[in-house]
């Protein structure tokens, strides 16, 4: 088992696994489903903000070109999409309009701050969940079918991992080992 832990830690691609391992250090496991989600959000936050901070500012406009990459987001676009998506989910869970996008989103500092603020609103949205409102049908932020605050919360915490995986590759293409993979 020790070997497995070492492999997991050393594994260049095991961001998700490090988040599971991190539970070993937690003083006590979360005792509610919502606290479990919030715990996962904190791991995610550490990973995403870590990537956004690790990418040099002059590489924020990077997107891959060798292959079929027409129309993909550049690194700044990934951060912006992530932050905007998280804000939208957080707003829908709270029954509010998502926080307005900052007027200026050009520099690395501005984009990282937007990401941090959106993740902050995600924590706030989770804090508002309770047994009474979790499964009440609410209008969806996308599409037509009613959804629930809890389903949105799970999507909000799991979807960004897709972008985490993409951003890991963007970093590596620029010679940067992701902080979570060191």
């Amino acid at each position, binding site marked *: 088992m020790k070997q497995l832990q070492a492999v997991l830690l050393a594994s260049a691609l095991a961001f998700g696994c490090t988040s599971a391992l991190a539970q070993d250090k937690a003083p006590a496991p979360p005792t509610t489903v919502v606290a479990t989600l919030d715990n996962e959000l904190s791991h995610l936050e550490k990973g995403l903000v870590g990537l956004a901070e690790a990418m040099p500012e002059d590489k924020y406009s990077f997107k891959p070109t060798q292959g079929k990459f027409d129309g993909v987001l550049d690194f700044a676009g990934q951060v912006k999409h992530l932050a905007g998506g998280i804000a939208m989910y957080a707003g829908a869970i709270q029954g509010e309009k998502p926080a307005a996008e900052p007027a200026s989103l050009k520099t690395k500092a501005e984009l990282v701050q937007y990401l941090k603020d959106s993740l902050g609103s995600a924590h706030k949205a989770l804090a508002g969940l309770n047994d009474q409102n979790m499964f009440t049908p609410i209008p969806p932020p996308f599409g037509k079918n009613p959804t629930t605050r809890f389903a949105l919360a*799970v999507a909000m915490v799991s979807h960004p991992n897709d972008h985490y995986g993409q951003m890991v590759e963007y970093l590596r293409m620029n010679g940067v080992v992701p902080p979570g993979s060191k």
Partner: protein
Amino acid sequence: MKKLAIALVIAACCCCTGAVIAQDKAPAKTVSEVYDRMTSNAEGEFIGAAEAMPEEKYTFAPSTSMGEFKGVRTFGQQVKHVAAVNYMLASAILGEKPPVELGGENGPDNIKSKAEIVKFAKDSFEYAHKAMKSFTDQNGMELVQSPFGPNKTSRTSLAMFIIAHPFDHYGQMVEYLRMNGIVPPASRQ
């Protein structure tokens, strides 16, 4: 707002917004049901990507000349890893031994061809569904032995990881596909 929603839907890399739209039935009413449906979303994206890569590219990993890629997993190894971890997590939720020999979190050595790897992955998601359907509001927060490390963790925490973990690797596999000239199925318009 509309513009952002459209941007989210058409963004080439955006996978899960489609997953939320795809819920064309009444919303799930329990934690177990939500997690089971989310597993289907992860499964759809992940298996689609696995099937889209040609067999001869299953051994592809970005070369060190393309960046800092020393020691990273090949495409096939990514698929096998997610499948093996699915089995480990699901068996911990169910409190039983995995029904297949895993050989650790990288999966068994004897599973090699694309067909074998894809089947291993599909079977792992089927087993994950069994685990997702098994827990209740009563026992979801009960602590069980974690398959990683000495600590105990709740069934719902393991379940959350079954949903989140494949997306991390999906995001990487999307890049591997594009590096080989293939647009991921979920990103095709």
